């Protein structure tokens, strides 16, 4: 190795190492530690014997973990399904309409993005107040003469999760809207002109030209929705509570994980082993679901 190579190597190390050390200790090391910890029994913060996959068996097969876990996972699936169906569809529609330069589009573009910047905590508490039985929404329904529609929005087992998801959509729909707007704005104008001259209809142009060309941004939004749905926590914490009330109907893997790690599944002491196993499951689900959607949407991508 020449002195020149050595100098170059030292410079590279100087530039790269501070960041790399932080990423490795705070992101990658904890990931492997989760895996490692999940294979041991734990007494509070002390690691005990190697137990193989026992902690995973508990999560998937032993009460009360099993019921709690499957219930929470079901709610995460609900988050994903409703967010895809309502938020991302609405986002695509908003993005498309804004790309057509309707009057006031610059203004609307800025307005729908406002709540994206607010913290989940502030939005959750604000809407939590509005959705209380004596809150603004029920007050509005009464004023509008539809007292029959008044509900305990966060107190009814069948409604609570959906109310919280809708609040989250209120906060976040501006994000997919602007991502889709940017993608549609990048569709080459010649393609659209040509289609117009051929007399193609609005719907046909959207389905046949725009949609295939914005598949990469659909992939990005889908993956972000998967990650977001599996990590729901603050929304439940602020609008319902750590136990996912009423009667665990709003519980998610995030809140269950937090209770297992720092409290317990049905109140008690922290369970590091089972908690780590749930953490590993979150990692795996995120990873597998993201890869699957990238792979399946990737095949639909077209190049110009």
């Amino acid at each position, binding site marked *: 190795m020449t002195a020149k190579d050595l100098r170059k190597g030292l410079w590279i190390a100087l530039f790269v190492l501070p960041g790399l050390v932080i990423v490795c200790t705070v992101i990658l090391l904890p990931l492997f530690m989760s895996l490692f910890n999940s294979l041991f029994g734990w007494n509070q913060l002390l690691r005990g014997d190697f137990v193989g996959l026992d902690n995973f068996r508990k999560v998937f097969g032993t009460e009360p973990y099993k019921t709690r876990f499957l219930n929470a996972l079901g709610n995460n699936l609900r988050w994903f399904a409703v967010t895809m169906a309502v938020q991302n569809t609405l986002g695509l529609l908003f993005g498309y309409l804004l790309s057509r330069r309707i009057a006031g589009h610059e203004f609307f573009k800025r307005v729908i993005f406002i709540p994206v*910047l607010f913290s989940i905590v*502030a939005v959750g508490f604000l809407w939590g107040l509005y959705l209380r039985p004596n809150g603004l929404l029920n*007050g509005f329904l009464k004023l509008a003469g539809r007292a029959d529609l008044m509900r305990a929005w966060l107190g009814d087992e069948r409604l609570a999760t959906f109310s919280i998801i809708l609040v989250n959509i209120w906060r976040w729909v501006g994000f997919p809207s602007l991502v889709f707007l940017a993608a549609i704005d990048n569709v080459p*104008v010649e393609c659209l002109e040509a289609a117009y001259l051929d007399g193609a209809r609005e719907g046909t142009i959207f389905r046949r030209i725009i949609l295939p060309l914005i598949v990469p941004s659909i992939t990005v939004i889908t993956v972000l929705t998967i990650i977001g749905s599996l990590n729901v926590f603050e929304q439940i914490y602020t609008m319902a509570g750590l136990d996912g009330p009423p009667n665990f109907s709003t519980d998610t893997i995030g809140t269950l994980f937090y209770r297992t790690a720092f409290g317990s599944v049905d109140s008690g002491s922290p369970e590091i082993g089972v908690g780590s196993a749930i953490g590993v499951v979150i990692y795996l689900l995120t990873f597998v679901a993201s890869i699957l959607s990238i792979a399946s949407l990737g095949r639909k991508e077209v190049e110009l």
Partner: protein
Amino acid sequence: MTTDFRFRGSGPGRKALIIAIEAAFIAYAALIFYPLANMVLSSFKTTREILQKPFALPSRLDFSNYAVVWVEKGFGRYFLNSLWITAASMAFVLLFGSMAAYGVSRYKYRLSTLVYMLFLSGIMLPLKAAIIPLFILMKNLRLIDKPLSVILVFIAMGLPSTVFILSGFMKAVPVDLEYAARIDGCSDWGIYRRIVMPVVAPAISLVTIYNAVPIWNDFFFPLVFLQSDRWKTLPVGLTSFFGQHSTNWSLLFTGLSIAVLPILFLYLFMAKYFIRGMTSGAVK
């Protein structure tokens, strides 16, 4: 290039459609503004007024609630904590992130792809799921209840996207600039500092907004790591405040206004940068 892509044609059906779309957008804008306006108006009302006349204007403009929440309830301190913790985290995200981006994009060496992938792996991994080992790590480093714990986590959270975005921009800086500087006797650090960084300055502002907003808003890590009241950040402070005063609606709306309005005002002046910053990571 932006497509000029207005709705075409002008039959009565087309006109009705456009009017319906405009009406829908105006209704949606109202759905965003009204809850915010009601929040601010409610902060001037008494709890009694809020519950009995939720849609009425406040009977007087009384700022005493704000004084109570800001001083007595500690929001002034929460606000300052959020501010300096975000600033300190961002300073290191930008410094270490730009250095790492320079290290992987401006040198040719065998391990550069591996280093780049190590940084990128952080983009997809949900850091919250690693809270148990992180908690044990911080405990062993004796950082529990010290702001440095969350600052470290925030730096790690910001680095992957920063390296990703900045290395893209740095690759595009012409090598000729670097050669010229080297002939003039500039060191590697000098080239990073005086040639490459000024050229990618617009990307720096983009990365700043992209990362500062989630760090400012983050709730989970301060909740776990910072337990004593003196270090609480705004989202955590807001949470304990809601726990203590759950029936005093008047104070609750004041606390929310203090949490929400500064961001709103900042956004009104810098909307363009915010929009570009928040969407750039996803679009690239």
